[in-house]
């Protein structure tokens, strides 16, 4: 080479560059669009294995630029940022933490765990650090918005839809601050920004938080059902039950808020419908082939013939799967709560507790006794529910109120009273129910 003069050398380099470019250009030709198999080899492979940014979700241009600029240093950079985020959390430096999480997801936009971890972190761990309920609500929303952003960029990860639904449904509906959070979900405390309406990023149609959560769960199920896609949260059957659970949550929340009206009746009826006609009729894969939770003898026969297993096996697996998702409990509960008598009983007990708090003990006692009697009558038809935690705890709590009135009024507790069997059978549970009772009456 040294024998060549400078000009020849340059020409040779140039020729080499052109020569090497040909395969690169050929292999790297961009895809012509939606058409499958168009473009160079690399584009074809990308579309075949769903590796292209655009096939994963909406492309964030800044994130793509960042990853390109960092070349191979992305791993190092994201590790540094994760450390920084931890440190900022320890020092309660929330603004920086939020900005750092934003940078992390720029670097790892398609890493499911990052979205899950940080979204959860914001909605649960950061929010609880703030003393003002309004601030806590702000951070719960931040967590949900973060996950929503994750969904936008990763349309094929059902887990992220599920998390968003879970935060909107369960975090808002089940925290200690649920009364505030549920109210804020309808009318945001940041009145200046949202004019007394909901935060339209999360709740554009001003719906109940459980119902918005339900929409997310439905979307999660829709994505999960696509071929080649799976969720990593739990057993598939349990995952698919969430839209119905959101409906249960909604119906229960209405009761907790003292709404015993047409709306709550419809909510419970729909819960029953969703549980038995929608979720209950889905086919779930089990070691004994496909099963249907709400199956008729014909279903069993058909499925066992199709899968080539005995009817006995089919029935055994159906039973086992019903146990796993407490199918029969939820079905009975929804049936019970859909009855007018149940609503009456719940209303009387709720009102009785209210009177108790207002120290109107005579009225309280009358309503509680009425409610207890109705409740007992109702349970005659739902024997299986008598052993369920939720029913037992409800009964014990009501009895505690009722007994406490006797204490206050210095009256003898009669030998027989409605729901007495719960009190006699579940003495051991009093220890765990009593603190809740104390808390309820103290507030």
């Amino acid at each position, binding site marked *: 080479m040294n024998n060549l003069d400078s000009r020849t050398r340059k020409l040779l380099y140039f020729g080499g560059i052109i020569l090497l470019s040909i395969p690169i250009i050929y292999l790297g030709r961009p895809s012509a669009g939606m058409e499958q198999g168009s473009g160079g080899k690399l584009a074809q492979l990308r579309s075949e294995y769903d590796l292209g940014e655009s096939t994963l979700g909406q492309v964030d241009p*800044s994130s793509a630029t960042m990853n390109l600029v960092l070349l191979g240093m992305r791993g190092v950079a994201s590790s540094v940022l994760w450390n920084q985020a931890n440190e900022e959390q320890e020092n309660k430096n929330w603004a*920086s933490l*939020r900005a750092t999480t934003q940078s992390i997801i720029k670097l790892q936009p398609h890493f499911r765990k990052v979205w899950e971890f940080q979204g959860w972190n914001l909605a649960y761990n950061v929010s609880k650090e*703030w*003393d003002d309920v309004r*601030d806590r609500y702000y951070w719960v929303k931040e967590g949900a918005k973060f996950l929503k952003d994750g969904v936008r960029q990763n349309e094929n990860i059902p887990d992220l839809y599920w998390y968003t639904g879970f935060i909107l449904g369960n975090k808002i509906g089940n925290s200690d601050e649920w009364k505030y959070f549920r109210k804020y979900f309808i009318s945001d405390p940041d009145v200046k920004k949202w004019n007394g309406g909901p935060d339209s990023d999360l709740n554009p149609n001003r719906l109940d938080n459980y119902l918005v959560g339900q929409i997310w769960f439905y979307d999660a199920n829709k994505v999960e059902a696509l071929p080649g896609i799976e969720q990593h949260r739990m057993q598939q059957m349990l995952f698919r039950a969430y839209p119905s659970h959101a409906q249960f949550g909604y119906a229960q929340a209405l009761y907790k808020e003292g709404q015993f009206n047409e709306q709550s009746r419809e909510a419970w009826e729909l819960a029953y419908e969703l549980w038995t006609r929608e979720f209950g009729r889905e086919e779930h894969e089990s070691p004994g082939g496909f099963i249907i939770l709400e199956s008729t003898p014909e279903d069993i026969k058909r499925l066992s013939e199709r899968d080539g297993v005995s009817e006995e096996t089919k029935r055994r697996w159906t039973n086992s799967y019903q146990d796993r998702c407490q199918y029969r409990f939820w079905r009975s509960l929804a049936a019970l709560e859909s009855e007018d008598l149940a609503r009456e009983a719940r209303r009387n007990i709720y009102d009785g507790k209210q009177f108790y708090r207002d120290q109107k003990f005579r009225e309280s006692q009358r309503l509680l006794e009425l409610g207890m009697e109705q409740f007992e009558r109702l349970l005659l038809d739902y024997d299986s529910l008598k052993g369920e935690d939720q029913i037992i705890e409800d009964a014990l709590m009501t009895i505690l109120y009722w007994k406490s009135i006797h204490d206050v009024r210095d009256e003898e507790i009669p030998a027989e009273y409605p729901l007495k069997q719960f009190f006699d059978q579940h003495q051991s549970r009093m220890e765990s129910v009593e603190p809740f009772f104390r808390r309820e009456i103290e507030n």
Partner: protein
Amino acid sequence: MDFDPEDINIPESLTYWGLTFGIALAASLVVAFLLAAALGGKKGIPRYFDHLGEGLRDTFGMSLRRVMAISSLTVKESIRKKTLLVFVVFAILFMFAGWFLSGANANKDLQLSVHVSFVLTSIAWMVFPVALLLSCWGIPEDIRLRSLHTVVTKPVKRSEIVVGRVIGFSLVGTFVVAVMSIVGYIWILRQIPPEIAKAELISRVPIYGHLSYLDRQGQPTNKGLNTGDINEFRGYIEGATKARAIWKFENLGESSLRLNPATQEKELLMENSMQSFRTHKGGIDDLVESSEEMEALLLHGQIVLENPEKNLRVSLPQFAIREFHQNLNWIPRKISSTDEETQETKTYDLIEDLIQDDGSLIVEFRCVDAGQYIGMARPDLFVRLPEKPFASSYFKSIFGLWMMTILVIVMGVTASTFVKGPVATLLLLSVFLMGTLFQHFMEDMLAGNLKRSGLFESGIRILTHGNPEVGKEGSIEESAAIKRIDQGFTGFLKLASNAVPNFNTFSFKAYTANGFDVPLRSAILPAVFSLLGFLLPCFLLGYFSLKLRELEAK
């Protein structure tokens, strides 16, 4: 703020510098003398003194004209080396930065800090490599290309080469910092929405007090309770007990008052950023509507102003602690207070009655709610003087960055007088990493805060898979001999650590990003002294290295 600014103690700092420098200088002179005597024989000693004399003449007899000539050549050379291309990188960064930062946080008082941190960090990251590479490669390249030969044969002193180089590179560094800081400033102004800018783009000027605590029995204690935070910066006091946090502010007077826009009176403004810790959730089971009622749900604190000289204690109204928000307390000039014993209501004058004759004010703080805790550190309650414009704090931060750039240049030029370019770069990079990332670790280790961290002790422990947390009595690594050897090493490291500047001193980002003015005594002066402290030693080292260096050795 989650750090505690401490004022510099000037006499102590100067004494420490003088001692360290004196010891190092004396040690070098003695070692050089011994070497000269040992290696040079009879001629060695006179030559030693010749060099010293020449050194003094070169130092004090520098010609400004020649220094400036070398500086101007250095500037030209830097431009020729396409140094200013750094602006292209800078421009690209700022063109796209908005994508990453805007909307990252909707909370307005938090938005500013993200933007300011970004600007200051990126300027530092842009300037540092420029300063590092320029200064470390200048002289070695001159030697390699033999251009230095033509210079040293002229009547140019080597001290002038060193100083000229430093000044030349500094001019380039200054230019780069100046342009970037102005662009950064305009960028911040443009990024922050105008309605936020007015309220948030300020520099608060705080007066901090001294904090002490009383425990729940009312006995003095040196710190508050820890409620389980990993970060032990704040101490907590328990509500409805005798626990108190007591601040003593000094130098207050008429001039500390400012106009309260609500009352149009001159009042004392205090700001607090304390934190709440709950042992029970409080009344959140019943919905309340109004923001006053919401406020009532928060933990409350109360301030009592005390003047022991006049035996006065005046309670102020209780106030809610809104965590992580700006909480302001306006203390009016005239305060009415009811005496707890006599039930007599009297009006007191803040300046006349409550601030003591020496200008000090004692502020006692208690947590009102029983079973709950409020946590505080010294900077969590301060008197706020009238604000300065944002530019004041921003450009002070830039001044800090500029000083850092100069120090890097000075050290780079010094290193380049005795090693080649790549080695000088690595050397300075290591010093920089030690002086930034590992500064805390180094300080902790030398101060003995890290348990069982001796060189040999931990070495043996690594080999034998020992546990540094528990330790094993009677083992080799914990024997007295090993400890003594380690002590010797630590002593040596302590001395050597003085050669590593704490580059964090030059970063005032935390002040500017949090909307504070950069204080003179606790931030600017320590940085100025750090820079000045390194100038003379670096010059001497650089000058003698270049003077005694064999220029033919490439």
